[in-house]
């Protein structure tokens, strides 16, 4: 199977969907002539032209809202945010309009948009460009949140997101764009809401999404080699819908869970998952559920400190060893 970059897997997903459905358009800053700030849309403007791949001015509120308005009439915009951090200037459009129009119209209107871009820290750019708002989005009924951890999932989930008739927020990761995974040539889709066991294990469940899955896989290796701990790594893939069954099945098997995510801890995604586990698998637990999140301060610029701020292998291993 060919190995391809995370960014290329996304690019292929866009190309296939642009090809398949005339109503799919890509819009965002620098995505067309510049080929994408992170080259995720490279070559698509040349191939599909101005009508389908559209550069916008730096006006997130307007172009996110424009995408929502267009989607009400059947266009399927895939809106790139150069960083998910920039969603904050389009908050009203994304969190008020996209999330509630269907409900407030009693189901008369739907909003089939994808809003996508990187949402991660660890890139040494300071607080304004390092937000991970998957918890905000997942908090909001009406929205769906997908966080692919690898190229294979990124492509399959993106294609599903584009075909989904609800607003789907896809949160990618700049640190993954340049990494390669096996991706088949033939077309495939991954249903939204289905978690994936990335590593089977018996002793403890590491439950994560996005790049933290990769960090957990590294931590699992260390745990196995250095401590003979057999960790299972469960990739949630999406936060809403959430594969609760997969979470509970894993915890029932291992009886211990460490939740790993890049959110800040207070009201982060891990808080919700911990609540679900304690409610539905309390009797299966041999230890308290622990969390590894980003440290609870604005994202720090200084590189060595930021590396400590976001979840890393050492912190995961340390946390696992606290309960095992």
């Amino acid at each position, binding site marked *: 199977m060919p190995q391809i970059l995370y960014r290329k897997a996304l690019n292929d997903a866009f190309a296939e969907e642009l090809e398949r459905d005339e109503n799919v358009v890509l819009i965002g800053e620098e995505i067309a002539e510049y080929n994408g700030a992170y080259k995720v849309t490279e070559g698509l403007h040349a191939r599909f032209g101005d009508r389908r791949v559209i550069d916008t001015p730096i006006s997130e509120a307007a172009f996110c809202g424009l995408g929502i308005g267009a989607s009400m*009439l059947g266009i399927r915009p895939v809106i790139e945010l150069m960083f998910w951090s920039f969603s904050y200037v389009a908050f009203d459009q994304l969190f008020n309009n996209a999330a509630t129009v269907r409900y407030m*119209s009693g189901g008369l209107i739907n909003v089939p948009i994808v809003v996508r871009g990187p949402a991660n820290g660890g890139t040494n750019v300071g607080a304004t460009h390092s937000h991970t708002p998957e918890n905000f989005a997942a908090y909001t009924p009406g929205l769906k949140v997908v966080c692919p951890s690898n190229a294979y999932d990124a492509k399959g989930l993106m294609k599903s997101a584009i075909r989904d008739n609800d607003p789907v927020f896809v949160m990618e990761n700049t640190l993954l764009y340049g990494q390669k995974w096996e991706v088949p040539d033939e077309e495939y889709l991954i249903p939204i809401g289905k978690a994936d066991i990335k590593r089977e294990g018996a002793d403890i469940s590491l439950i994560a999404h996005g790049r933290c899955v990769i960090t957990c896989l590294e931590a699992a290796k260390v745990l196995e080699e250095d401590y003979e701990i057999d960790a299972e790594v469960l990739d949630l893939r999406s936060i809403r819908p959430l594969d609760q069954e997969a979470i509970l099945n894993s915890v029932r098997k291992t009886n211990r869970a460490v939740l790993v995510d890049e959110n800040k801890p207070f009201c982060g995604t891990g808080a919700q998952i911990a609540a679900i586990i304690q409610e539905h698998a309390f009797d299966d637990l041999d230890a308290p559920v622990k969390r590894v999140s980003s440290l609870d301060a604005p994202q720090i610029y200084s590189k060595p400190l930021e590396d400590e701020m976001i979840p890393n292998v050492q912190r995961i291993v340390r946390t696992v060893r606290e309960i095992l």
Partner: protein
Amino acid sequence: MSKNSNTTLETDKKSGAKKQSGKKPAKINASLTRDDKIKLYRDMVRIRRFEERSLHSYQQGRIGGFLHLYIGQESIAVATASLMEDNDHLITAYRDHGNALSVGMTMNECMAELYGRFTGCSKGKGGSMHYFAPDKNFWGGHGIVGGQTPLGTGIAFALKYKKLKGCCLCLLGDGAVNQGAYLESLNLAALWNLPVIYVIENNRYSMGTSQKRSSAGAPLARRAESYDMDWEVIDGSSVYEIREKLSPLMERARNDCTPSVVEIQTYRYRGHSVADANAEKYRSKKEIEDYKKNHDPIMLFEKTLIKEGVLTDATIEEIDREAKKEATDAAKFADESPYPPQEEIFTDVYWEIDHRTGKNEGRIFFND
């Protein structure tokens, strides 16, 4: 309007209109039949009676929430809706009852929505500020000031993308012109040449703050010049004038996707919402009375139509009686309608869930 654009309009001979607008904008009114005129008048009266009846229900405690009454501004809703063709669309803010009735939504569904009933236009899920009727090209009904302006721009984008010959009327209040989303929208519309007309309903007060205290530069529509867009100020007390001035801009948008901004001067007789306790403090009673006496759009149109021989005292009385009865009946209908059943809380949140497509797995609601 910037001076040269009148020339553009006058010489724009293309027309995809069903109702021929011809070279001279005024023809848009000359071509109105007697029935058309009565409908314009009747719809204004219907809006006013609906609003009065809803206020009454509110005061009776039968409805709650916010209630932003359209009384005084009826001419705008009626004139805009009357100009809409098959591929024209309309979106507005939260003062939306008049637009809803003008595009053909029934008093029953509108009133029932205020009452939070299942028979409401949004099944009781939206409320006063969130009426929708996509089958009538009416896209709301939006609660956040200026929040609908990017959506309206997107509707215009969709029309152009689908190569449909239509335009979007994107209504906003005078307070919304100071929201970034609106100004960003103007830029996109002008930059991409989108068939949208931003219609500022300038009722002079953004809640309790007068235009003078909130907006630098006048007229408000003039901001369009920064984006090389044409603009125009219209006297909103005249249905004919709104139609005459708006029609060519819509025609041009349909034909060559040119966006524009119009500012329609109007006045609301009531407070910002019925909860506005200061409606007679931030403006004088005298001012309100002057509008009612001298600029009321219904009264003025009534005079015009009497002069034209279209209306008589008897027909006026009949139209009013019918409108009052329709509103009273609507309140009765609403009052007798059921509330949405409990399970409705979780429908209409997600399309894929409502349609049981199975494309989404996992848990979507988190209630326990």
